[in-house]
C-alpha cells in the first residue's frame, strides 16, 4: 500500500486498530474465564469435616481397638503396640467408604472388594495405596485428630504412629 511506503512505520492505522481490538478481546476473554473460574471454584476444600476433632481420653481406647467417628469421617486406630493412627474412611481405589470388620481384623470396601489391615495397609487390591490419614496429636491425655488436612501415603510406616 502506498501509505505504508511513505510512512516511517510499517504499522498502518487499520492494522493498529485491528491489533488493538484483537488484544483487547483476548484480554476480555481471559478476564471473563478467570472470573468464572473464581466464581465457580470449590467452596469448601479446607476444614471440610470440621477441623479439630477431640476423640476422647487416651485411656478410653484399648490397644488393638478401632473406633469409627462417622462425623469426622475417620477411624481411630490404637495399634497393638500402643501408637495412635487416624485413617480417612475413603477407599483409595474409587472413594467408597470402608468399614471395619472386627471378625476379619481388617477394613473392607464393598465396591470392588479391596481390604486393608489394621494400620490401613493394602491387604487386597484393587486399592493402589494404603488408606489416607489425618494428623493426630495428644494433648493433656486427649487424642485430637485434625480432619482438615488429608495425608496420603503409599504404605504404612512405623513413624506414622503417635504415642501418648
Amino acid at each position: 500500500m502506498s501509505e505504508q511506503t511513505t510512512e516511517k512505520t510499517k504499522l498502518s492505522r487499520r492494522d493498529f486498530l485491528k491489533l488493538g481490538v484483537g488484544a483487547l478481546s483476548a484480554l476480555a476473554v481471559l478476564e471473563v474465564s478467570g472470573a468464572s473460574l473464581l466464581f465457580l471454584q470449590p467452596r469448601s476444600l479446607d476444614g471440610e469435616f470440621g477441623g479439630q476433632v477431640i476423640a476422647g481420653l487416651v485411656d478410653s481406647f484399648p490397644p488393638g481397638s478401632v473406633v469409627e467417628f462417622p462425623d469426622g469421617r475417620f477411624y481411630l486406630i490404637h495399634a497393638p503396640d500402643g501408637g495412635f493412627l487416624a485413617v480417612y474412611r475413603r477407599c483409595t481405589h474409587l472413594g467408597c467408604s470402608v468399614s471395619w470388620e472386627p471378625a476379619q481384623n481388617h477394613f473392607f470396601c464393598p465396591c470392588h472388594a479391596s481390604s486393608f489391615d489394621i494400620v490401613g495397609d493394602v491387604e487386597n487390591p484393587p486399592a493402589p495405596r494404603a488408606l489416607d490419614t489425618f494428623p493426630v496429636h495428644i494433648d493433656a491425655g486427649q487424642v485430637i485428630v485434625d480432619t482438615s488436612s488429608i495425608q496420603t501415603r503409599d504404605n504404612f510406616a512405623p513413624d506414622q504412629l503417635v504415642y501418648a
Partner: protein
Amino acid sequence: MSENNQTWRQRIFYTTQTDDRSRMRAVANNLILHLHPTKVPAPALRWTYTWGLGGLSATLALLLIITGVILTFRYDASVERAYTSIQYLETQVAFGSLVRALHHWSANLLVVTAFLHLIRVFLTGGFKLGRSTNWIIGLVLLLIVVAFNFTGYLLPWDQLAYWAITVGTSLLSYVPLVGTAVANFLLGGPEVGQAALRNFYAIHVAVLPALLVMMMSYHFWKVRKDGGISQPPTEPGERVERLTTIPHLVQIEFAAAAVLILGLFVWAAFVPAPLEALADPSHPTNPAKAAWYFLGLQELLLHMHPLAALLLPGIILGAFVAIPYLDKQEDNIGRYFRSAVGKQIALLAALYAIGLIPLLVLLDEYWLDLPALLPGLPTLISNGLIPLALTLGGLAAVYLLFRTTNKANKSEALVGLFVFVMVSLLLLTLIGIFFRGPNMALVLPF
C-alpha cells in the same frame, strides 16, 4: 393457492394442504417444518433404513425437556430436602410419580435410541460424502445425553446417586496432573456433598439443555445442508422417485412419535421410577453398581487400573471421531454393512466377541493375576498399561485377521472391528448387570 386465501385451519394446521405446491410451500414457510426439505427421495423414507431412530431420539429429548421443566417446580436441590422432595413427588403430588417416571424412562430409552442411531449411521456409512461434521456433532450429542444422565441421577440423593457419583468422579482423580483439580471443581469440594448437588443441578437443568438444543438444531440443519440422509449412489440414468414431505414424511414422524409417547405413558403409569434408600455416606450398598448403561465401563474397572479403564474408552471414542477419515470409500454409502463381504465379516465379528469376551472375563477373574505375576512393577503398569496394550493389540489383530483371511477392504474390515467393539461393550454391560453380585464377585443371576 396463495397465502391470502388460505383458511385459518390451513394456516394453523399446515398438514391439511391438499395440493403439492402449497404443501411444499407450507414446509418452507414453517419454522419447525423447514428443517425438512420440501420433497424427499422415496427410499429415504423406508422404515428399515433409519428405523426412525433419530426422530425417536428427538421426540424423547423433547419429552425430557417438558417433564424436566415440570419436575423443577417440585424438586429441591439441597442435601436435606432433595430426597424428601422426591418422596413427596412420588406420594403426595398429583401425577408426580407419573411425571418422574416419564422423565426417568425417557432418559433410559434415549440412551438406547441414541446409541442405536449411532450404530445405524455407522453401518450404512452415513458419515460419508461430506457428512463427517455431522457424524462428529452426533457423537457430541451422545456425550451430552450421557452427561445428562450422569448429572441427573445424582439429583434424587439416594444410595445409587451418592455412590455412583462418588465412584464416577473418583475415576477422574487418576488422570495425571489435572484430574484431582477437575474432580474438586466439579464437586465443589473433595467429597460428594451439598456443593456437588448444586453444581450438578445447575449443569443438568441449565447448561446441558442449552447445549442440547443448540447441538440438535445444528445436527438437523446439517442433515439438510448435506443433501438429506445418506442414500445409495444412483446408477447412471436411474431416476429416484421424490415425494412431498407433507404428507409422506410428516405423517410417518407423527405416527412414530405418537406410538412412542403412548407406549411411554402406559409403561410409566405402571412402572414408577426406582428410588433407593436415602444416601448414606458411611455405608455403600453392596454391590455398589452404577446405572445400567455405565456397567460396561464399570466392568472394565474390575479388570484394569482406573487410568487404563479410562484410557480405553477414550481411545475408542477418538477412533470414532476419526472414522470418516479412516473409511473414505464412498461408493458403498447407503448399504448396510457396505457389501456382502462386510455382512459376513460383521457376523464373524459378533461371533468372535461372543466367544472371546466372557472367556477373558472368567480368565481374569479366576486365574490371571498380572500384578502377582509381575511383582516388581507398579500396578499402573502391570494391571494398567499391559492389559491396555494387550486389548488394543487384540483389536488390531481382529482388524488384520479380516483384512488377510477374509480379503476384506479397509471399509469392510472397519465394519468388522466396529461390530466387535459394540458386541463386546454389550456383553460387558450384560455381565455387569446380571452376573455381578455382592463384593462385585461373579454370580449367576438365577
